[in-house]
Every structure is written in structure tokens, then in C-alpha cells.
């Protein structure tokens, strides 16, 4: 990242932080609009206790249903004072979090098959925290606020207000709509639909200034799920770009934000370091210095080990994936009659991911040898590696295929061009491997500029 970009980023952040003061949503809630709704609004943005009972979880679901029904289906837009500016984000965030943890809990209860009472209760309420209701809320908030139309107008350089309509022109709806887009990204990713997750963000331009830059947690969530989805689509270069962007942003703006928001993203921060380490193992890249240093500090020897490849790293990949992946959801009620088939979805995704790891784990080793030669005999190299020559031929084909990767350059997140991701290239002519390298030419501009400056 260049200094200029960094400066823009820091300025944006300062601007955003100052803007907080003028924000009319920050008003103290007026008691006039009824204490009841205020209590509901506050509850919707508040996490449940860790030990909350099933009844509490059901009640919380009802609370959300009532609240969203009120916001979406009243006679015209509702006029309520929300507790503070990040309220809208907190509501959408907490809503999805509770959906996520409820599904996980239900799955566990079914798998353990111990608590008859809870099983009974869950059997009787199959539609509570159902995937259709959750998606319905998010899509309705998006449609009501006409946020897609607004974002598209911004993209064309027009005024979003013109397209906002009766609902979307109000900050409450606009914010709920915008954060629902991000919520949808997250839900699709949690359900394992990685391409639809990325498609959801078609209207948002990640490289431009966010509509709500000051809600840091929203940005953070966006980059985590976009990066993760890219990784599962094997677009490692794009995943690295996403993770790096936000991790650099966080490390450079750390000093401005000493609030609860920042604490809550620390865990995700660590997860993203783990993910970026995985991606770099698949796709060796020069990382931003800040990130490189942080990775060395956090992971030390493990960081180098992963990049060397080989089967001995499989447990490490597994451990990293488990610690850094989202808590995947099985969206439908589990099969209470066959407890053992209700496996934690994380295991499923881990299996899919590890297949890919196993498939490519020899690439770094092969590449490290090829780098040393301009031509090499396949049988000789097989001897070095102590492997059957035909096996090596397979590895060479695999590595070559994996060098071709889709990389985003413009447009929607699902777009991209095929690029060669490695500076090492080779081709086989019988048993002879021809190796070539992309070399970086001399950099003259810096030298020229420095000397020019001296002569002035």
C-alpha cells in the first residue's frame, strides 16, 4: 500500500470519527415515543446471556419478529428514535449471531441426544429461527430501503436520495438496508453458498468509501466474509487482497479507536491472520510489511513451515481452519431420530477444504527444486524427491493448473481474469522439464527521482 493511500485512509477515518459528533441519530432517546418500543430496540441490539435458556432464545426470536414487523409493515415508515448510531448495525449483527448460535445449539442437542426436554421443545418449534424467516427479514429490509437502487445511483455518480423513496430516505431504513446486505453476505457464507455470498455484494464497491465508514465492525465483517468466500472458491490472490486491506487498515487506525467496537473485532482480527497465512501457503505472495511482521510474531516457525509444503503440515492446516472459519450452519431442524448423523457442519467444510490442501501440498516442494534449474530431468527430480516419476508428473500438472487463477480487476466480486500466480513457469517435453522465471527488471524511477531532487 502506498503512503498516499494510507493517508487517504487515515483521513477518512478521522472524518468519520468526527462526524459522530454531528450525527442526529446520537440523540438521547426521547421518552415520548413510548418506553415499550425503546426497550425492544435496546434488547434487539443486546447480546443474550451466554447461559440463556431455550425459552429465552425463543422469546428473543419473537422480539425480533415483532420489531421487524413493526418497522417493515406499519402504515408507512415508522418514526422512532434509535438509541445510538451503531444501533442498526448491532441489531442486524446480533440478529444473525443469534440465528447462528441457535442453529448450532439445536444441532448439538440433537447430536448428544441427552436432554429429552429440550429435544421435545425443539421438535415442537421447527420454525423458530428458521432460515426462511431470517432471509425474509434481510431481503425485506433491503427492498424497503431501496438500498440497491441507492447504491447503484452512487456508483453512477448520482445522488442516492433520488432513488431512496419514502422509506430509504430515512437514516433508520437506509442503515438497516445497507447492513442487511452485509448480513446477507454473512448468512450465505455461513450456509456454504460462497458464490451467492459474493454476488450479494454486487451493489457495494469495496474499493470506494463505504456508506457508513464509521461502523468499523461492519467493514470488518464484510472483509472477513468476502475473503473467506474467495478462499473457498480458491481465489487465493483475491482473498489475500481482502484480508490484507482490512488488517492494514486496522493496524494503522488502532490508535484512533479505543472503544468497545475495537475489542469486539480482535478475535476476527486473529482469525484473519490465520486465514491469510493459509492463503499465502496456497499462493505465495509478498505481503504488506505490517502483516508480514505480525504473522512472524504470531506464528513464528509455523509460518515458514506452511510455505514449505508437505504432508507433515496437514494437522496445522486443520487447526488453523478450525480456529478461523465461521461457525457454519445447518439451516434445517436436525434429525432427532438419528442423533449420530447430526454432525457439526464445520467438519463438513473442513473435509472439503482439506481435500484441496492435500491435493496441492506438494507444490511448494516441487517449486523449490525447479527454481534452481533451467532444465531438469523428470526422473532425476523424482529421485531427489524420492517419489515415483509418474506421481511427480501428476504433481507437475497439478501445480501448473493451480498457477492459473482467477483474479479480480474490476466490476462485481465474481468477475476476474485468469492470471499466472507464480513467477515460476515450466513445460514438459517428454521427461525434460523446461523451467522459466519471470524476472523483475531494474527499477530506475526511484533512483532517477532521488537524483533529480538532489540536483534541484
Amino acid at each position, binding site marked *: 500500500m502506498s503512503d498516499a493511500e494510507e493517508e487517504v485512509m487515515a483521513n477518512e477515518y478521522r472524518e468519520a470519527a468526527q462526524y459522530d459528533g454531528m450525527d442526529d441519530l446520537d440523540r438521547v432517546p426521547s421518552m415520548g415515543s413510548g418506553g415499550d418500543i425503546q426497550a425492544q430496540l435496546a434488547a434487539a441490539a443486546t447480546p443474550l446471556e451466554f447461559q440463556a435458556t431455550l425459552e429465552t432464545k425463543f422469546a428473543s426470536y419473537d422480539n425480533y419478529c415483532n420489531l421487524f414487523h413493526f418497522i417493515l409493515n406499519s402504515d408507512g415508515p415508522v418514526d422512532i428514535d434509535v438509541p445510538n448510531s451503531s444501533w442498526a448495525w448491532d441489531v442486524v449483527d446480533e440478529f444473525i449471531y443469534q440465528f447462528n448460535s441457535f442453529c448450532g445449539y439445536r444441532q448439538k442437542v440433537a447430536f448428544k441426544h441427552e436432554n429429552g426436554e429440550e429435544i421435545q421443545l425443539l421438535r415442537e418449534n421447527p420454525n423458530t429461527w428458521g432460515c*426462511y424467516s431470517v*432471509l425474509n427479514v434481510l431481503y425485506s429490509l433491503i427492498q424497503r430501503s431501496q438500498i440497491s437502487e441507492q447504491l447503484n445511483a452512487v456508483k453512477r455518480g448520482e445522488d442516492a436520495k433520488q432513488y431512496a423513496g419514502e422509506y430509504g430516505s430515512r437514516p433508520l431504513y437506509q442503515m438497516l438496508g445497507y447492513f442487511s446486505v452485509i448480513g446477507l453476505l454473512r448468512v450465505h457464507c455461513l*450456509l*456454504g*453458498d*460462497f*458464490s*451467492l455470498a459474493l454476488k450479494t455484494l454486487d451493489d457495494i464497491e469495496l474499493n470506494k468509501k463505504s456508506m457508513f465508514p464509521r461502523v468499523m465492525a461492519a467493514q470488518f465483517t464484510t472483509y472477513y466474509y468476502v475473503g473467506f468466500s474467495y478462499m*473457498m*472458491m*480458491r481465489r487465493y490472490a483475491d482473498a489475500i487482497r481482502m484480508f490484507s486491506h482490512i488488517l492494514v487498515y486496522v493496524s494503522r487506525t488502532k490508535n484512533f479507536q479505543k472503544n468497545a467496537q475495537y475489542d469486539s473485532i480482535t478475535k476476527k482480527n486473529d482469525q484473519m491472520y490465520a486465514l491469510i497465512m493459509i492463503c499465502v501457503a496456497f499462493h505465495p505472495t509478498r505481503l504488506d510489511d505490517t502483516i508480514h511482521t505480525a504473522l512472524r510474531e504470531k506464528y513464528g516457525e509455523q509460518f515458514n513451515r506452511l510455505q514449505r509444503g508437505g504432508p507433515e503440515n496437514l494437522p496445522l492446516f486443520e487447526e488453523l481452519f478450525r480456529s478461523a472459519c465461521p461457525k457454519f450452519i*445447518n*439451516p*434445517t431442524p436436525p434429525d432427532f431420530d*438419528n442423533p*449420530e*448423523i*447430526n*454432525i*457439526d457442519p464445520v467438519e*463438513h*467444510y473442513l473435509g*472439503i477444504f482439506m*481435500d484441496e490442501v*492435500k*491435493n496441492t501440498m506438494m507444490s511448494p516442494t516441487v517449486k523449490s527444486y525447479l527454481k534452481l534449474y533451467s532444465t531438469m530431468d523428470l526422473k532425476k527430480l523424482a529421485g531427489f524427491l524420492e517419489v515415483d516419476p509418474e506421481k511427480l*508428473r*501428476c*504433481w*507437475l*500438472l*497439478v501445480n*501448473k*493448473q*493451480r498457477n*492459473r487463477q*482467477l483474479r479480480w480487476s474490476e466490476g*462485481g466480486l*465474481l*468477475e476476474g*481474469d485468469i492470471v499466472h500466480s507464480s513467477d515460476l*513457469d*515450466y*513445460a*514438459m*517435453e*517428454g521427461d525434460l522439464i523446461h*523451467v*522459466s*522465471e*519471470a*524476472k*523483475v*527488471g*531494474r*527499477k530506475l*524511477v526511484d533512483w532517477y*527521482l532521488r537524483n533529480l*531532487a538532489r540536483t*534541484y
Partner: protein
Amino acid sequence: MGAPFDFAPERPDHIEQILNGLDRYNPETTAVFQDYVMQQCENQTYDCYANLALLKLYQFNPHLARDETITNILVKALTVFPSPDFSLGLALLPSHTLAPLSTSSHTPAAGDAPLSEAVQKLNILKNLLEGADYAAFWSTLDSDDLYADLVADVSGFEELMRVRIAATVSQSIREVERSILESWLDLNGKEFEHFVGTVCGWNVDGDKIKVPINKDNEAKGTVVRENVKFDQFSRVVRRAFEQPA
């Protein structure tokens, strides 16, 4: 510019419409998508994004899921390896489909054992293909009658696989021994010569096969040159104006 992931050239308008609207979640569209999968199997066309939408409908409405359609979608995804389509399909299946079979076979009541078995068998094929172990792919495909059943609906499956394998081969290879390529394509004699010569346009030279040079198997060294932007000189230019010499 490559085509975006959600693009399919032969996608009919009514499918496009469903995919872009909320109807993609409507259980009633399941039948439409199922027909579309069948159509892809017959016409040798392919639309991953639409097929994933169907798997998502199954994910939300497990009672509607049809094992045969699921496996057809996965078999179609094999024909476009090494793209991630197969794995993306797996990601939308129930988590027990990849679990070791012994657990579910204890309880036949689970009912899904046949699906799990089929999915895991196909996953073996996927791993062989992505591992570029083409000879093992063909012998595995041949080893079990279940495979023949699974790929039966996909018209031209073997031909499609050969073309795909040939495509990956041409990216990395300029010349290869005939016997090796025969095992990769599972073809011999006249059929082999026809496929390699006419379909691929490669040259058979004794017991060597020569693949014409293309931009991938050329492996030419390049020098990355510095990309100079005018902005880098803005300071110098500005100073030139500020302090006329």
C-alpha cells in the same frame, strides 16, 4: 476479461429471471431447476450458478431433494475440473454426506446412506482428477458398476472428460510418450489417433505425441518492467514551476 462466475452463455431467460429474483428460494421452482439440470445433461451444456441455486433449495427443503439430481449436478461439475464447482456443490449438501459411511450404515433408518455413498464415490473421482492422476481416474471409474449408473444420465461424459483432460495436458506439455497419454485418455489404437489428431489437433510422431506450442506450454521467461506513472513525477514538476531556474 473472463466471464463472471454467475454467467452461463446458454441460460434461458426464465432461469435467469428466477436466479435474479426471490423466486430462487421458492420451493415451487425446484421442478424448473430440475428440468434444467436434465436439459444440461442431455445437451452437454452447463450452468453451475443455477445448479447451486437448486442445491440451496434442497438445503432449505430437504424433503424435496432428489438424490439423482444431486449426483447429476456433481457429475456435471466433474466435467469442468479443475474449477472449484464440484467443491462448491459439496458445500451445499448435508454435513453427513461426507462423513465416514460406517456411522450411517448402522441405522438404515437414516435413509441417506445411498446418497452418501454416491457422493463419496464421486468425491474420489474429483480428487483423482484434481490430483491429475488421470489413469487412476479411468480405472476407478471402471472399477464399480455404481459409477456407470451415476454418470449414465450425463450424455457424452467420457468424451467431455477426455476433452477436459486434453485441455489441462496442453497447458503444461509439449511432448509426451504415447503410452502415458493413452492411459490418461483411456484410449488405444485408431480411436486414440483420431482423438489426438482430429479432436485435439496434435501430432503423432512414432511413440511420441507433440502438442503445438501455445501460450501456456511455452513457458517463456519474461521480464517484468517497471510501471511508471506520471503522478510519481508530480513533485518534480511542481518544483520546476515553483522555482524557475
